[in-house]
């Protein structure tokens, strides 16, 4: 059973939303709907997330990603379609049951932190536990643990106004972690932070995730961020344009829209040895230095330059997969999906 599953999910804002959905279903593009003043935010989403996965929804502003994440915890009702959280359909729940589900299963981290300014760090972190009805001593104790987990030990009794942006968002993250839910929704959680702090927070999130194994839905408009933290990425513009791993999206963009996004991604951090290798051919590879297939390209420069022979890419069982040469790296990195996309489609049409 999937942790989260959505099925033909639509959300249209404005009067005449239902007929707009019917039109969308019959294939009308979102900018040609007959009813004026309707905005199609989420169009025909069908996907599911397994427990323990980091699922990134990436899109520009107005692509419906904030609407989508708010539908996952029932803050916004879908116009049509279903959402299942751990097999339970949200539409079938009463308001009370929905609140209970939010208390026990889903927590959320907000773009602008959404902290209570008059409460100290530890009191803010305890907020979710307070709503769950824990006693004061117990919730403060668990809040302190969460504060320590995100590396804010020593700042427990400060007020949010005394913290920097990155520290505030750590409080937001600690609040979500303290609630101890399986699912974590992160709405542009790092977008308001400076680039350096943002990277630090991404690392910390990955580090925490390796310990905690939550199911995370992460919303962002930054493809580099998406590629860095996402196990799978859904690129959205109302509808899902492409859903896949970072490498899928970078090497095999589904259409021009996706290809344009990938143009300014730092490919050396996302692509791995496996992605830039060429076939071994008939060469004798036994003397070549070996690299693991999942090493990112930016860690290959040094070994590939210091070795006269190509590098041999091996899988987990040390079986050879291919070879990496300076030429193969340059070739893969200079690949411009936006320019080549037209030919890619033609190739697909030819019988394999």
């Amino acid at each position, binding site marked *: 059973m999937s942790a989260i599953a959505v099925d033909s999910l639509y959300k249209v804002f404005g009067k005449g939303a239902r007929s707009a959905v019917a039109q969308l279903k019959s294939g009308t593009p979102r900018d040609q709907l007959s009813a004026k003043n309707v905005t199609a935010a989420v169009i025909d989403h069908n996907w599911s997330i397994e427990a323990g996965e980091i699922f990134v929804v990436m899109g520009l502003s107005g692509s419906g990603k904030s609407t989508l994440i*708010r539908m996952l915890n029932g803050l916004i009702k879908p116009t049509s379609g279903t959402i299942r959280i751990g097999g339970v359909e949200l539409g079938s729940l009463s308001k009370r049951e929905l*609140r209970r589900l*939010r208390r026990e299963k889903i927590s959320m981290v907000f773009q602008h932190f959404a902290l209570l300014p008059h409460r100290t760090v530890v009191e803010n972190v305890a*907020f979710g536990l307070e*709503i769950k009805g824990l006693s004061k001593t117990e919730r403060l104790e668990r809040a302190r643990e969460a504060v320590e987990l995100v590396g804010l030990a020593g700042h427990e009794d400060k*007020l949010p*106004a*005394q913290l920097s942006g990155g520290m505030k968002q750590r409080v937001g993250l600690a609040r979500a972690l303290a609630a101890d839910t399986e699912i974590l929704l992160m709405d542009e959680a790092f977008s308001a932070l400076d680039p350096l702090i943002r990277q630090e927070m991404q690392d910390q999130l990955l580090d925490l995730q390796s310990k905690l194994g939550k199911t995370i839905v992460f919303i962002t408009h930054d493809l580099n961020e998406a590629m860095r933290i996402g196990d799978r990425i859904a690129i959205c513009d109302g509808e899902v344009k492409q859903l896949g791993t970072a490498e899928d999206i970078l090497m095999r963009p589904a259409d021009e829209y996706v290809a344009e996004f990938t143009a300014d991604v730092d490919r050396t951090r996302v692509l791995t040895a496996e992605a830039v290798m060429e076939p071994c051919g008939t060469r004798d590879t036994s003397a070549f230095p070996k690299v693991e297939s999942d090493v990112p390209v930016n860690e290959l420069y040094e070994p590939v330059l210091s070795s006269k022979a190509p590098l041999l890419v091996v899988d987990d069982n040390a079986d050879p997969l291919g070879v990496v040469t300076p030429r193969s790296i340059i070739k893969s990195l200079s690949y411009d999906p936006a320019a080549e996309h037209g030919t890619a489609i033609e190739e697909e049409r030819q019988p394999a």
Partner: protein
Amino acid sequence: MIEYLRNWFWTYIWKPLPDMPFGDWMESFIRWARDAWATGFDAVDSGLEFLYVHLADGLLWLPSGVMVLLFAAVAWAAKGWKLGVGIGLGMFVVAWTPYWEQTMQTLSMVLVSAAIAILLAIPLGIAAAESKAFSAVARPVLDFMQTLPAFVYLIPVVMLFSVGVVPGIIATIIFAMPPGVRLTELGLRQVDREVVEAGQAFGASPARILARIKLPLALPTIMAGLNQVIMLALSMVVIAGLVGGGGLGSVISGSLGRLDIAAGFNAGLAVVLLAILLDRVTQGLSDRTPVARAAKLAR
């Protein structure tokens, strides 16, 4: 031609209209209400009278010298020692005038009416913030309460409650309540949407979101409303004096009749100093709310 049109209008359009009846309707409604709800009005009358009399007695129980020190202590606690000294000096001047007793009567009238006004205003403000329909209905009613000249509603109020301190209190409540409602609504509507959403996302019930998130965050604005309510209440004392409300208002309206400049000035001075006391103390309290203190830290 124009002459003809004018005659035509006055003869055929305007003349058939009966006499404008709104005033008569109001009068018969008030007369009817006086008889129909007599017990209710009596209860309100004696309740307010009771509150006023006991509060005034309490304020006059101690000698004025001790009270001056007490007021200074309250101001100190609310803001700091500077305000404490200033208020102490001000109240000393008030105690020096011949009108200490009247000042305390006015103060208790202001406190009783402001307390009732804010107790009514906060729930109404909450309702207006939660419901757009209620807000749309409340707004013109509040405008009406605030702009209708006070003398106009003093007439029916005196008719319902007879002359004395109670009609003054009622008129003051009507006049002073609107900013309490408006600022409560404003404060609640200004609460950051994302913080409210955080409450919802963690599964808090609407009542809890109101009590734990919205009201604490709106408190500085609500306190500004309380300040406005109290200042408006004080501005009504002179008018209340006209209907036998006692206190400084009676002194002032009496000195107006006798052209007694000295008495009028002394009582006026007491009103001003009382206003400063009430304004600075409530402002001090509003700066002491947790949210306002946290905001100060951010600067």
